[in-house]
């Protein structure tokens, strides 16, 4: 049975529908306003620029952060006439007092697989505040492969040089080894002479006059020999000392190289170490998530039928290990 227009439930129907529409529209406007306010849509913004060599990871809408807080977004990314990338940032004006003209814009990433963002850092208090349409210096983020490559590039020449120096030091025909051999030979010769002199003096008391004279003649010969040897040493010593100095110089250079290498390694360690715990944490989560995803996928038909649980195979013993 059709209801008549005079039914009291149809009274003011147009007004009711209109009111509901207005309320809904109002709620939508409120929601849009709320979301816009939360995302900083109504904040006064300052436009700044930067130029990147490469546009990898740079997309409009990515966050700009200062000390970890979101202070703006990337507004526009364009390829310029020099094949570089012009990036326009919109930063909330109330935060501009901390963005100095010498600040750096560093491209970073949330964890291993997170979004990229631009971190503003490194500005000094002496520098003025960055003006509207000012330009920031851009620093691309170093990935793990970049860090490894950088470390390799810095370390390899140093290691090569260190190896060359050690080869030079260890060369049997090189200055250092020859110097050491010469010194060893001289020492043994001097010891021999000293033993002969000791023996001579010990026998002196037991000798007759004639023998004493003869012995003294012998002693004179011996002393002359010692004298010749000493002059020989005197002549060769400067050369030996120069060789030794050159050897010591090489060793010092090698030590300096090693020290520089250690410094590079320490710097790299300091750069990488703070990132390691976060990376490990992210990796752990990643593996867990991957495990959950894989298990989820395994339960979907037809994989669930293909990847049925492994049956326990029968054990067949062998006679040989």
């Amino acid at each position, binding site marked *: 049975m059709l209801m008549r227009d005079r039914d009291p439930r149809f009274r003011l129907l147009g007004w009711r529908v209109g009111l509901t529409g207005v309320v809904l529209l109002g709620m939508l406007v409120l929601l849009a306003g709320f979301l816009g306010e939360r995302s900083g849509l109504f904040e006064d913004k300052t436009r700044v620029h930067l130029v990147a060599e490469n546009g990898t990871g740079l997309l409009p809408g990515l966050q700009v952060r200062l000390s970890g807080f979101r202070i703006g977004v990337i507004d526009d990314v364009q390829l310029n006439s020099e094949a570089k990338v012009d990036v326009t940032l919109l930063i909330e004006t109330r935060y501009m007092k901390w963005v100095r003209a010498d600040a750096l814009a560093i491209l970073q990433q949330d964890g291993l697989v997170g979004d990229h963002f631009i971190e503003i850092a490194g500005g000094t208090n002496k520098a003025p505040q960055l003006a509207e349409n000012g330009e920031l210096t851009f620093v691309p983020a170093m990935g793990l492969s970049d860090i490894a490559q950088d470390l390799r590039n810095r370390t390899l020449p140093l290691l090569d040089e260190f190896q060359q120096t050690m080869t030079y030091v260890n060369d049997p025909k090189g200055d250092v080894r020859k110097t050491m051999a010469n010194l060893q030979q001289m020492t043994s010769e001097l010891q021999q002479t000293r033993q002969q002199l000791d023996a001579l003096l010990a026998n002196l008391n037991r000798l007759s006059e004639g023998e004493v004279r003869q012995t003294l003649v012998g002693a004179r010969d011996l002393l002359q020999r010692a004298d010749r040897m000493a002059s020989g040493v005197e002549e060769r010593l400067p050369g030996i000392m120069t060789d030794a100095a050159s050897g010591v110089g090489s060793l010092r250079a090698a030590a300096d190289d090693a020290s520089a290498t250690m410094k590079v390694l320490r710097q790299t360690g300091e750069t990488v170490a703070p990132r390691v715990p976060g990376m490990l944490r992210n990796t752990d989560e990643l593996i867990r998530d991957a495990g959950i995803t894989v298990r989820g996928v395994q339960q979907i038909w037809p994989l669930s039928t293909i990847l049925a*649980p492994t049956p*326990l195979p*029968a054990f*067949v*013993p*062998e*006679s040989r*290990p």
Partner: protein
Amino acid sequence: MMRSLLMVLSLAALSACASPPATSPPPLVQQQQRSLSAALAAEQAGRWQTAIEEWQYYQQASQLLDDWSAQARARLSLTTLLLRGQEYASAYQQIQGVRGDTLITEELRAQAALLEARVALAAGLPDGETAWLQATQFCQQRCAWRAAAANVRARQLLQSGDHAGALALIAPVLADAESPAAERSHALRMRAEVLLRQTDVAGAAIAIAEAIRMDRQLGEPLWLIDDYRLQAEIAGAQGDAVLERESRRRLDSLCRAYPAKTCAGA
């Protein structure tokens, strides 16, 4: 036409939604299943240490689930892996008591007895013969591991100096075309050893060459090491310096690539 197709599809979707949701097994059962899959995969890939660890997890999960057969199965695999690694004391500890456990099926107990006989043989422990007897009592009829049992007994006889008895046990294994290749090659290797002891050096050389051919196909370096060690001895007895040098070279090469413990005294 289109409408009827849509109807059929809708009905199919509805019936799919109406089917009972798949229930996942309890966490411990899942863990047991995961350990089993990982252990078998590790064994197939030759990652023995990982296989040992996974079988240990499987054994623990089976213990918690009061699954005695699975526990015993894990212990059998663990013993085999420990024997392969020449960890005889651990292998003995692992297999001890399994063959007398009445909560385990008779077949698993018999297999455990055979493994215990093998451990006793390798480690020079007593009771190997008793264990072997228990194993063969189950395997009176045709069973998958009868050739293995015969070879273990032949090895025991060989160790005690009963060469004729060993040859008699080996013969059926070699004659049976259905014997597993691993058992046939082991039988050939033992035959070569017996023939060498009986001074039939030419026969020994033929048998060991055939065993080596089979073991190369089976791809078991451990067995090849054992074979080449015997071949070098046979070549020495034959006075064949070329073959002896070649065997020792192959043995050295295998030993360089295999853990040192296996080749100690090679």
